């Protein structure tokens, strides 16, 4: 397949996924809302209703893209490490510690905070990888357990060392201004996070498609046995992929706390967003360059659902149902029935049976 055809077919897939998402949402709204059409209109149009909501949409998309990139690295290697949430909390915590250290008021505050967050996240990513390669511990369970542990540790440090009566017991004080991203458009959440997300996208793409490490990683993911026969040390690839993904998860934590949306550490600041990276990377078929677009599209729906919660009678949590159903549909290669039908119309029996099998 040429580059152009590939882009076209992938775009088609993403558009199909979006149509699925809208259709599923419409069905749910019809069940749930007393005024379904008005609610659906709110869902579809409200993210564009003001400068502020557009800003939130962009900011959410930045975070979703980073979460998707973190998952894409491990999924490309067919490792189901699901520890992005924990990495976000530890990354956010480390970035916070840097912000409140003497460094926090200097020009080096942002890079130092990001670096600390990435190291913290990388450690959290490394643990399940190492445990799997050296001890045979299943990475799914150990990474999920680390999510809970990281969440509790972050809350502990926040409650005991960072929160105060003035700041409110569930948040830290605001970061010094040098530790908060500059806003590109005043009084919106459109800030330096965009640069971070785009740069990370390019770096991940480069690592996966332009380095020997990336080739080995993708080979391991496609066919672990073939990779092993050709002399690739799959355990090294496994651990390094999980560690690198952990660094991105940590980076996302820094983007959360250093961004203009927060500019401080709060309990549960991630609000379940890390797991939404699974949807992003599945729809983008783990291709880094597609991830920002998918994130923008899904971020829009997500923002629509949140506003629907305030302006109509359907709770924002319906987005979870939409999300899950879209993952189910996309993961089960939803083009297959259409292909089979097309083949049957063309009178090609064997192709039809192959497509359905």
């Amino acid at each position, binding site marked *: 397949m040429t580059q152009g055809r590939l882009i076209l077919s992938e775009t088609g897939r993403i558009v199909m996924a979006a149509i699925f998402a809208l259709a599923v949402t419409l069905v749910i709204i019809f069940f*749930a809302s007393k005024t379904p059409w008005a609610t659906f209109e709110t869902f579809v149009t409200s993210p564009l209703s003001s400068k502020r909501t557009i800003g939130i949409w962009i900011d959410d998309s930045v975070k979703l893209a980073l979460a998707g990139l973190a998952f894409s690295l491990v999924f490309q*290697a*067919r*490792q*189901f490490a*699901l520890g992005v949430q924990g990495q976000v909390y530890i990354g956010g915590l480390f970035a916070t510690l840097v912000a409140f250290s003497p460094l926090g008021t200097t020009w080096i505050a942002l890079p130092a905070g990001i670096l600390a967050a990435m190291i913290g996240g990388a450690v959290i990513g490394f*643990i399940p990888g190492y*445990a*799997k*390669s050296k*001890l*045979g*511990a*299943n990475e*799914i*369970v*150990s990474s*999920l*357990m*680390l999510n*809970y*542990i990281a969440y*509790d*540790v972050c*809350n*502990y440090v926040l*409650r*005991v060392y960072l929160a105060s009566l003035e700041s409110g017991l569930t948040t830290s004080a605001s970061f010094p201004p040098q530790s908060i991203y500059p806003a590109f458009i005043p009084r919106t959440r459109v800030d330096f996070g965009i640069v971070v997300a785009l740069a990370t996208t390019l770096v991940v793409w480069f690592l996966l498609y332009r380095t020997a490490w990336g080739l080995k990683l993708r080979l*391991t993911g496609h066919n*672990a046995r073939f*990779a*092993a026969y050709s002399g690739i040390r*799959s*355990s090294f*690839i*496994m651990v390094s992929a999980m560690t690198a993904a952990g660094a991105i998860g940590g980076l996302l934590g820094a983007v959360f706390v250093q961004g203009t949306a927060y500019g401080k550490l709060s309990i549960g600041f991630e609000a*379940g967003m890390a*797991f939404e990276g*699974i*949807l992003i990377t*599945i729809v983008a078929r783990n291709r880094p360059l597609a991830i920002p677009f998918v994130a923008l599209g899904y971020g829009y729906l997500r923002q629509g659902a949140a506003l629907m919660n305030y302006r109509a009678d359907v*709770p924002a*949590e*319906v*987005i*979870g*149902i939409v*999300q*899950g*159903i879209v*993952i*189910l549909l996309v*993961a*089960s*290669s939803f083009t*297959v029935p259409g292909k089979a039908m097309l083949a049957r119309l063309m009178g090609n029996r064997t192709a039809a049976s192959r497509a359905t099998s």
Partner: protein
Amino acid sequence: MNEIIATILSATFVAAVIRTTTPILFASLGGLLSDLVGSLNVALEGIMLIGALTAVIVSAHAPWYIGVLAGLAAGGLLGAVMALFHLRFKADIILVGFAINIIAAGGTVTVLTYATGGDKGTSINIPSKAVPALDLSFLGNIPAIGPFLREVLSGHSYLTWLAAFMVYAIWYFLYRTPEGLRFRAVGEYPPAAEAAGIAPNRLRTYGLIASGCLAGLGGAQLAMFSFVGFTRDMTAGRGFIALGAVLLGRRHPIGTMIAAVLFGFFEALSIALPGILKWMPGELIHTIPFVVTVLALMLSSRRKVTA
């Protein structure tokens, strides 16, 4: 330290362990059945959550056992959906499982909002019922150990006894019936099973449905005993811990039970500790079951690693 040991050895603590183990045991037995036929069920967490909410809502309008059955049925249905997407539509089982978890997290809150008329946190205004406790206080009449037995065994949910029976039933099924042999064969080496005329996908479907039913029961127990009602994310990782118990239990019902009791023990400990170790921060006590699960997996896993 002595205080902790005294607590652990007390009859009330043993009874607490039995209570905390029950939901995990149900879910991990379910996980065992699907793992045996080759599909790791990562959706235990979400299925428990949906089972719990279904049981709560149905039990508000029906007797408690109908509520429990509804939780079981909801779980079985989800297992069937997983089988459909995984076996028929060839989606990866881990992704299918996680999609179910995501649907459960959002879907239960959505349904709860409508069921309570706007409350997104708890089902406090739904008059849901509890599973009755089985009264075995006559055990106290046995000389010497009687009072201890009564403290430990009396007053547990009917479902606790069902869970214990299920360990035996699943063992009997797997090791004493022809269908159980086929079940194990599919998990060990699918091509051999296929050559012997066993359709792996049929058994995988049964495995996933059974696993959903058991996880649904676990959810029902969680929401209908000791704490009655549903709260947002009330499973709080128990389904994932149960998955850990499956991996730890060496694909055997007894092993799975031992692992489930181990995790139940640490959960009970994390509930009891704040009263004893007042200096220890609650957040860190709360991590105990998760830390233990990771450590147990690291120290015990001897499975061959494939990338």
